[in-house]
């Protein structure tokens, strides 16, 4: 497995190879990758062969593979795990590169889909700081971290409140623990008494509804 290199800006360096694309598509894709470089969680560079990510066209044999996490289909095709429709939009490219980068990071690191050693999912945990961008690779992780800023909570509770699978919560928690951004707290820790009363029940749901936001808590641990 390729080693994930850290750049001087502490971003992981990843590589991509363009396979079977025309000159125009190659130039276009490389240009857009450079354009969004300051926004992506990882630093992507083009290599002639052996890149960690293969970028292919819709007619490529790999385009129909629904499972490969390191294949990006440029031009899009139904069923591909990662696809980028044409014309390329910077936001879409940023999102798919971050998604793929997170997958590569997870597959390169030891898999800890269970709770980290010594961290039962009933144990209360708290964030020590807002996580670094490299760990906040999905919207779900940002929301999960936000939930954790409110108060200490268990992974089981976090999973239930966010509607995120426990395995995903555990993977995120493992990454946070490795980075020193998540610690356990004592079960006897008394809750802080706030200076003001909490919002009335139902108010936040009404605000969400008015803003067109879905309810925060699906209430179902998957």
């Amino acid at each position, binding site marked *: 497995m390729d080693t994930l290199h850290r750049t001087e800006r502490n971003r992981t360096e990843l590589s991509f190879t363009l396979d079977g694309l025309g000159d125009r598509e190659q130039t276009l894709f490389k240009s857009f990758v450079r354009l969004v470089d300051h926004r992506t969680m990882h630093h992507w560079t083009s290599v002639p062969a052996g890149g960690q990510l293969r970028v292919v066209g819709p007619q490529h044999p790999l385009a129909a593979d629904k499972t490969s996490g390191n294949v990006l289909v440029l031009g899009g095709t139904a069923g591909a795990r990662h696809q980028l429709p044409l014309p390329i939009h910077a936001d879409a490219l940023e999102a798919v590169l971050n998604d793929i980068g997170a997958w590569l990071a997870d597959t390169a690191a030891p898999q800890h889909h269970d709770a980290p050693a010594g961290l039962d999912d009933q144990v209360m945990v708290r964030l*020590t*700081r807002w996580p*670094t961008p490299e760990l906040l690779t999905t919207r779900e992780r940002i929301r999960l971290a936000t939930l954790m*800023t*409110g108060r200490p909570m268990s992974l089981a509770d976090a999973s239930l409140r966010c509607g995120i699978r426990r395995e995903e919560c555990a993977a995120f928690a493992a990454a946070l623990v490795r980075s020193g951004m998540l610690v356990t707290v004592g079960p006897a820790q008394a809750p802080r008494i706030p200076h*003001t009363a909490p919002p009335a029940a139902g108010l936040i749901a009404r605000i969400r509804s008015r803003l067109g936001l879905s309810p925060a*808590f699906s209430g179902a641990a998957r």
Partner: protein
Amino acid sequence: MIEHKIIFTGTTGAGKTTAIAAVSEVPPVNTDVRNTDESVAKAMTTAGMDYGELTLSGGDKLRLYGTPGQQRFDFMWQILGRGALGLVILVDNSRPQPLADLDLYVDGFARLIEDGACVIAVGRMQTHPQPDLSQYGAHLQSRNVLCPVIAVDVREPEQVVQLLDLLLLQLESKAGEAHP
């Protein structure tokens, strides 16, 4: 009718007026005057505050207040912050010392940050990527403040809505502490 409020704060030009306009159901009321500060490249600036609102089911109002950005108006911050649900701090990353700017509002709204919710939204990161979000997180940790820090373009209404989504998540989390 019950009234609730969310505060938007930040330096002049950080995007408070724009952010409120992105979600308000009424054209934001503001007290703009001609900008005479040559260091800020905008024609108008808010001398008082911005105001927007949303009507909730049941007739309650969610009022959106944008504080004046200049420190000489910090007496208004305490007044506006009283009883607010939460705070959005907009930081302009193109300014010379964005972290120092952030400290001003973290100090000025310390009670609201502690008891309510707070999200820090950093703008202009595309053109001014430093300090990066990791540095913001480390800086807040040194200040013993824990809240979300995200990059945002307040000209995009969807991004402003996502900001408020995070604010509401924090409130829900803290409410869960009070109402387990």
